[in-house]
């Protein structure tokens, strides 16, 4: 390397002596060290090198010349070095820095902010549900395919009916996963029951797949005494220890570094399972996304990060969310293997998640999966998305790009499903849901004691006193106390 340095020094010295006048010599140095100056500006200056003003500018650069030849990185214009490039490239030029060896180059090349080609998206079925020629995917048998399809239908109907229930004032809030049924169900099918889920909030399909009943969903939304959450949370904030589904938490992306922590503990247990953490496109803007990804990579935590890039974070389109090529490219920034998959293609999602999960468990490293999709519904019942996006766009994704329709075509063409089955299924699910809602509405609310428990492991003295005081008040003003709250 010393040899190369001396050679370049000689080149410069040689060029300076023979080709460049004193003023141009300064110019050359200016260009050499002032890579802060735009290249064009230097050319402008070169044209005017006879003026006094530019001469003064160059004199400033003179004082900055000290030590330039000793710098580790050198570069020069292509006019001079075409021949030398070949010679220099052939030599091994690497240099050690904290972080390892890095080869270096004389060419000053900036990595473009946007690649010529975006990262391609893995897909198996085309829009009509035909397998694309040459696609590789995990085979799915009849039983699995039908189960997946039925679950997607159930999820869709559940979303529709609970949404309507909110509109009728029967529950306070609801949030649908419409358009993302494939991501929900195919992911759930591809994972093992032991994999621990840290959801965002648009993944109830995973609970559904794992056996959470429609009644249990209704109990949480209505906040009844049978709600596993003891009526403490807003609707759709499901959680179930026995289904390995962590209770949903509203602040965005907090589950990402927590997932790394859970995975770190899981790793110590040596289980054949991993942690699966979800986020949306908006969630990747949170600081916790950076922290979670970075830590998972550094700690080699077995976390499968799944980003549902559905194009919208309430009213913020992804063009206002980030300027990168989506989320998949961020994986490499953290040293995490990543893949982009068509989130509306059930088979693609299934195959990709199966493969990713296996890698996570086997190699005990994090992996990032970006599933491209579209949020067909509003963000939640507190949102009216027609206010910020065109109706025909929503309609297009609801019908022409529907993940259910696409998968159904594939399943039916295999002879595993038919129209009668469809009608029957939809009728049954609808009936079950309406029944579940009726039951939940008639159910008792959680009892008063559940107001005070679980703040701490044991009921502290002050809460004990408050409960006592409250009960005394209730006794004194019996008729003011709501009749549907059991004491």
């Amino acid at each position, binding site marked *: 390397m010393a040899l190369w340095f001396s050679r370049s020094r000689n080149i410069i010295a040689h060029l300076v002596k023979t080709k460049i006048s004193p003023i141009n010599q300064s110019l050359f140095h200016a260009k050499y060290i002032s890579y802060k100056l735009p290249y064009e500006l230097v050319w402008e200056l070169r044209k005017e090198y006879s003026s006094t003003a530019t001469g003064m500018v160059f004199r400033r650069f003179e004082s900055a010349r000290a030590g330039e030849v000793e710098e580790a990185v050198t570069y020069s214009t292509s006019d001079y070095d075409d021949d030398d490039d070949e010679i220099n490239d052939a030599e091994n030029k690497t240099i050690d820095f904290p972080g390892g060896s890095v080869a270096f180059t004389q060419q000053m090349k900036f990595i473009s902010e946007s690649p010529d080609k975006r990262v391609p998206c893995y897909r198996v079925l085309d829009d009509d549900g035909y397998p694309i020629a040459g696609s590789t995917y995990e085979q799915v048998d009849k039983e699995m395919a039908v189960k997946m399809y039925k679950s997607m239908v159930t999820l869709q109907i559940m979303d529709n009916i609970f949404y309507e229930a909110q509109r009728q004032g029967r529950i306070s809030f609801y949030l649908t996963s419409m358009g993302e049924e494939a991501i929900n169900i195919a992911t759930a099918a591809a994972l093992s029951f032991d994999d621990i889920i840290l959801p965002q909030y648009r993944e109830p399909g995973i609970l559904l797949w794992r056996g959470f009943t429609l009644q249990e969903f209704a109990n949480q939304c209505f906040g009844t005494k049978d709600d596993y959450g003891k009526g403490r949370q807003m609707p759709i904030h499901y959680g179930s220890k026995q289904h390995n589904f962590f209770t949903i938490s509203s602040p965005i992306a907090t589950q990402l570094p927590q997932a790394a922590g859970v995975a770190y503990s899981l790793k110590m247990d040596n289980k054949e399972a991993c942690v699966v953490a979800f986020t949306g496109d908006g969630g990747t803007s949170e600081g916790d996304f950076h922290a979670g990804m970075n830590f998972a990579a550094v700690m080699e935590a077995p976390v499968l990060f799944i980003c549902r890039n559905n194009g919208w974070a309430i009213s913020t389109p992804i063009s206002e969310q980030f300027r990168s090529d989506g989320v998949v490219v961020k994986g490499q920034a953290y040293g995490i293997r990543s893949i982009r998959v068509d989130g509306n293609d059930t088979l693609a999602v299934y195959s990709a998640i199966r493969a990713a999960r296996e890698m996570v468990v086997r190699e005990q490293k994090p992996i990032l999966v970006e599933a491209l999709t579209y949020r067909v519904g509003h963000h939640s019942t507190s949102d009216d998305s027609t206010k910020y996006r065109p109706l025909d766009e929503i309609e297009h994704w609801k019908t022409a790009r529907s993940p259910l329709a696409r998968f159904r075509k594939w399943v039916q063409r295999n002879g595993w499903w038919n129209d009668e089955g469809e009608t029957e299924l939809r009728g049954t699910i609808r009936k079950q849901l309406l029944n579940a809602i009726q039951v939940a509405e008639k159910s008792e609310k959680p009892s008063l004691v559940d107001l005070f428990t679980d703040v701490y492991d044991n009921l*502290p003295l002050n809460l004990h006193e408050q409960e006592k005081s409250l009960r005394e008040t209730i006794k004194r003003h019996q008729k003011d106390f709501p009749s549907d709250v059991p004491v």
Partner: protein
Amino acid sequence: MLIKILTRLVGGGGGGVAAAPRSVSFLNKTFRNYSSSSSSSSSNSSSVKKMTVRDALNSALDEEMCADRRVLLMGEEVGEYQGAYKVSKGLLQKHGPERVIDTPITEAGFTGIGVGAAYYGLRPVVEYMTFNFAMQAIDHIINSAAKTNYMSAGNINVPIVFRGPNGAAAGVGAQHSQCYSAWYGSVPGLKVLAPYSSEDARGLLKAAIRDPDPVVFLENELLYGEAFPVSDEVVDSSFCIPIGKAKIEKQGKHVTITSFSKMVGFSLKAAEILAEDGIDAEVINLRSIRPLDRSTINGSVRKTNRLVTVEEGYPQHGVGAEICASIVEDSFDYLDAPVERIGGADVPMPYAANLERMALPQVDDIVRAAKRLI
């Protein structure tokens, strides 16, 4: 995981400007002797064992990590550097890098990881270089750690301890000097502790680590180097102090002075000065900010009929304000004089030594306040 990072401003131990507040030479010891291996017994004492707060914390951490494999320590500089204030000295060497984890500079990140690990069943101890930096992680502390047991209906408990120096050090300016006792003390779901002596430090940290609920453990940088006498009981590895009980450091009958952390020392000195004038002050070391030991405080005020609350933090919405409200609610008839509240000046902490002195309660302030009541 062995990432070397430049230490933050405070520079690995008390090593800032020797602010030279009026009295206490122990401050000088803090600045210079943090790196020397401090023994738990003083060489010139008789039979009384002395232990610095730093050693108390170190031994408590060590013993709990030995007793329970699920306990782990994480934070900036806790491993290779032996701890920014040397509190975790020797722990990496003894327990290994899987249990003493040097983290990158992402408070939000490692707090999130700690909370996640606690969700799954480990018992992490998360160290912040100061609680000022914990603000970058406060969402995880409050929205995740404090509320999850309740929101998950008891399915997910969070046996985590957040610890680190709180309040003013010496000459470290506004962003390194705030006291967060009132902030965390207002959150249901958290337990908040503030030790003063080595006995407090050992007993309360052990209790915090063993507790199934999230605990915020507010230490004080200037106390780390201060040595306190410790009995054999304190040194025993099973020693533990119950959370939620205050300690009456000095019995008295004319005025009650409540304080916590460093201010306990100031209050005791104030009590000495008051004694010269015939005023017998009762000094209470709160030990626990949440739950607050209202019965001990009320009991004391019912005896003395006068109350001075002392804290370093800002007076508005402070610990003293809560104590005052508690007394007014429960022991109003016993008060012979209004409650005197002493807190830090309502300004971001200035750096200049003289201004800093003016911004913090001093022994004289406590003495004057007590005398105003008599």
